């Protein structure tokens, strides 16, 4: 089992992203980075400062940025293209579909500011469907890391693997959960707490909430199995089936609409031997302006809500 706990330390995943990009850039001169007038927010600007000749700000033109990324990739470049999740996927969907996923080109879309915790900007900027959109594309792999340590590993791993990836991270600083590097593998999930009563499967920002939920449940005498699932596609089917078999009840947690994301991926994985599944996510509504934490609470994306739903599921089993 890999070591995972909520530590006192916090680090922004965007900082981890830019550090990893710079060290990739040092090692491989084929690494090229694109952004669309959000380089200060996504922090790709740091790469641009170190490697100005390999950094291209495409201006406010996200769809074209994806086509340009594809073109660069056909010429042997390893391309990282970044902007906010809402513009990286929604606005650019057809460019990604036609120019990146279909020809299976070596473009890594790393999107920041995903989810409702974007806060004050409101629904127009709170991307809650990006995993659904990207999961639906053949050849596209989808990753949602939980902390800065894992984020660095993700960036290195996807740079080594040929072909398209979509990586989603949030805006807020996040607690460090993994103190040591090295566990991340594409397609693998991680059992970070053992338990037999119910399995909680979480991804991205929700893994920290799930860890807190575990503690709440422990106090109530419930032993939850906890799975961190950074790789949404391909997903760790074996681990999901094991969790279903050993616990008989699954809860999925994602800062995303309940349609088309982690919950659906988990349901698909246990299609022939299903167990009750409850999805925690945003319930098919647009978000709204508010504080990040306030919104997470209002939309039920908290440890407390996970614990409450988990307890209900355990009681129903009896």
């Amino acid at each position: 089992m890999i070591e995972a706990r909520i530590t006192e330390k916090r680090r922004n995943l965007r900082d981890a992203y830019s550090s990893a990009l710079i060290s990739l850039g040092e090692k491989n001169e084929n690494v090229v980075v694109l952004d669309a007038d959000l380089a200060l927010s996504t922090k790709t600007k740091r790469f641009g400062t170190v490697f100005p000749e390999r950094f291209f700000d495409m201006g406010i033109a996200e769809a074209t940025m994806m086509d340009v990324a594809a073109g660069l990739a056909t010429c042997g470049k390893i391309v990282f293209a970044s902007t906010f999740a809402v513009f990286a996927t929604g606005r650019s969907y057809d460019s990604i579909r036609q120019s990146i996923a279909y020809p299976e080109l070596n473009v890594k879309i790393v999107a920041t500011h995903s989810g409702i915790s974007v806060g004050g900007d409101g629904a127009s900027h709170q991307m809650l469907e990006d995993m659904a959109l990207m999961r639906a594309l053949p050849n596209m792999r989808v990753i949602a890391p939980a902390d800065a340590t894992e984020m660095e590993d993700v960036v290195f791993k996807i740079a080594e693997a040929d072909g398209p990836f979509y990586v989603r991270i949030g805006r807020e600083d996040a607690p460090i959960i993994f103190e040591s590097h090295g566990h991340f593998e594409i397609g693998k999930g991680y059992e970070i707490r053992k338990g037999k009563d119910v399995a909680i499967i979480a991804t991205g920002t929700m893994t920290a909430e799930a860890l807190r939920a575990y503690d709440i449940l422990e106090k109530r005498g419930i032993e939850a199995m906890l799975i961190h699932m950074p790789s949404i596609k391909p997903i760790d089917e074996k681990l999901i089936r094991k969790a279903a078999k050993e616990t008989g009840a699954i809860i999925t947690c994602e800062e995303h609409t309940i349609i088309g994301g982690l919950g659906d991926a988990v349901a698909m994985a246990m299609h022939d031997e299903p167990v009750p599944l409850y999805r925690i996510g945003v319930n098919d509504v647009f978000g709204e302006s508010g504080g990040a934490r306030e919104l997470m609470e209002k939309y039920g994306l908290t440890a407390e809500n996970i614990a409450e739903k988990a307890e209900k599921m355990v009681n129903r089993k009896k």
Partner: protein
Amino acid sequence: MSSIMPSLINSPTYFIIKMHEKAVIKELKRKALQIRKWVIESVYQAGSGHPGGSLSIADMMACLYFHEMRHNPKNPAWEDRDRLVLSKGHAAPALYAALALAGYFDVEELKNLRKIGHFLQGHPCMKKVPGVDMSTGSLGHGLGAGVGMALAAKLDKRDYRVFVILGDGEIQEGSIWEAANAASHYKLDNLIAILDRNKLQIDGPTEEIMHLEPIAWRWQAFGWEVVEIDGHDIEEILHTFHEIRHNEKPTLIIANTVKGKGVSFMEGTLSFHGKPPSEEQYVRAMSELEQAEGELND
């Protein structure tokens, strides 16, 4: 404003018109300052938001909502009203200030900008905010929506006009050019786009990030009538609106502006694109704007 016959120039009538003009301009300057103050107030209270691009359109908003546009705050859904699409939706604080000043909703609401459970969303939401004609926030969509509204006017034989406010960085989006082409194709003389040419986007000056010039020439090539003005000169704005009334093509007004206009330490800076003032900066900004108001009264 209105063009005057030469024979009138020394007459008492002309004198009266001039006096009236002066009063109108002074009143609009006052409105613009009020909008600026409320932009600062609401963004400060929210603790986030976009002051720079809101301040650069304050004079234009004052002229539109308090002079040029036909609208009725008591009936926001009036079918014959002129429409306004704030395509650069992040300048919502300026739009909300203008709408509150016009009476669409209680001024006190401005203090609840971006707060959970309140209706003033970080970016304009037509379902929640009375007076907002189109939901925006993702750049590049507003001109297309404006084309739709202008087409509907033609279909329904209504004489309302559609104003679309564009950011200069925003016109890097390809969709803007698709919409610009459609507007001239369908001869939408009832469509007026206003380009807030403040020369900055987020990552830097527009010409460094992704060049736009020659802007006028490009839009003319797309079949638009183009005028270029000082976007902070109320008199010139009013004069321009008057001049373009009978254009037979869609019109682009290139309004040369200063990002952060009216607050000295925000003017021409990148840093206040999407950052609220600190407490100390808030106090300074308000006192500068109040001083400007005082000078207007002298």
